[in-house]
């Protein structure tokens, strides 16, 4: 690297960001966070030296930006390899279709769809209450601090949602909260936070989570109940028919379905439908992860 050595924390972080260009946005956020923790602690530990004097030695202790960047790249590759268990890819079309039952992501995504109604309601309430109270209190002294606390809470909620999405869908999301670097003054920090596109996209995400959550929940519940009913009704009907247990006055309608030859087809339809639901859940999980990343995580290079 024939680039000039960084002489300030900002320069260091900028160079590190450039070195990591093209990597996963969440990885970059984590790397910058770690570096800032170290650099600020190092500067604070040497009050007698200026920031540029401390930074001069940083390449031999913490490592130059390119070294640190390659350390993150290597470790990320190793962790990814160790965490993803190699799955046997079924070759046949039927294997691919029914293989979804072996994919843990399909189950976690389905769970996420059911959960998203609850989180959607909470996020929506939080965002709308915060916004309207901020607007209403703006004329009072308490308005501005209230708005700032609300903005800070948005970031915490954003991190929590990111962790949930990574757990459910496996999409890499930030493991550290967003931390602004560069400015030290309180008001310039506030200004930066307001100018940050991500603050507003996060807010949009929280509000949109309610309609999305309702849709996910409805799809999951309707899909599950329909397919499970189709699968198990024939079994209950048969046990009733042969008197294994009394299911009450059970009738399947339309009447032409209520014959012994139709029951296996009904069960088959249920199983196919259930497989389809699992595929839909996995697909929704993937799409939602991409969507969440676009709104919650800053794109690389900014």
């Amino acid at each position: 690297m024939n680039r000039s050595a960084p002489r300030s924390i900002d320069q260091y972080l900028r160079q590190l960001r450039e070195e990591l260009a093209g990597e996963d946005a969440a990885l970059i956020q984590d790397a910058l966070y770690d570096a800032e923790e170290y650099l600020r602690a190092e500067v604070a530990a040497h009050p007698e030296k200026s920031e540029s004097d401390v930074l001069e030695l940083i390449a031999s202790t913490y490592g130059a930006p390119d070294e640190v960047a390659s350390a993150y790249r290597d470790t990320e590759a190793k962790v990814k390899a160790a965490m993803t268990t190699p799955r046997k890819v079924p070759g046949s079309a039927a294997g691919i279709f029914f293989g979804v039952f072996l994919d843990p992501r399909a189950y976690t995504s389905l769970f996420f769809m059911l959960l998203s109604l609850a989180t959607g309601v909470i996020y929506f309430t939080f965002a709308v209450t915060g916004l309207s109270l901020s607007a209403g209190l703006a004329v009072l002294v308490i308005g501005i601090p209230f708005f700032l606390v609300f903005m800070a809470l948005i970031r915490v909620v954003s991190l929590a949602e990111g962790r949930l999405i990574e757990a459910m869908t496996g999409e890499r999301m930030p493991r550290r909260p967003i931390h602004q670097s560069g400015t030290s003054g309180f008001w310039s920090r506030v200004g930066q936070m307001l100018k940050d596109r991500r603050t507003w996209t996060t807010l949009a995400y929280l509000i949109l989570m309610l309609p999305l959550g309702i849709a996910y929940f409805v799809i999951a519940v309707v899909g599950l109940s329909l397919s499970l009913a189709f699968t198990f009704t024939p079994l209950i009907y048969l046990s009733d028919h042969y008197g294994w247990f009394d299911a009450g006055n059970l009738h399947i309608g339309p009447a032409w379905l209520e014959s012994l030859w139709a029951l296996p087809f009904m069960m088959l339809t249920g199983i196919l439908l259930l497989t389809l639901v699992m595929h839909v859940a996995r697909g929704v999980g993937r799409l939602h992860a991409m969507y969440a990343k676009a709104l919650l995580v800053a794109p690389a290079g900014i």
Partner: protein
Amino acid sequence: MDDSNSKKFQKDLNGGLVGLVLLAVLNQSSEDLYGYEIAKRLASANEGVSIFKEGTIYPVLRALSAGNLLTSRIVPSYSGPPRRYYRITDQGRSVLAEWTAIWAGTRNFVDRFIDKGQSP
């Protein structure tokens, strides 16, 4: 040329050793430690010069944490972003015991040849 050779060798060696050293440091410590503190402990143990660049321990800490060998919690800090404090888990301790045995075996094996070559 020589210098880059030794650097590469050191880097290859460090690949697995950083994880072992970090587990050992956290196992010895009675309190939770954050990244900067760990880096300084490593450096002070070796007359202020750490064998590996301190920046390389952070991604390894995160990897160990992702593997449930460490747990962590976040504590706000005045000097910069909130600090992440790490603590070793029971699983981490048993892995440390395994790795320590592997390291001892490896070191004995390597020393067997190196000692012969050096003291003719």
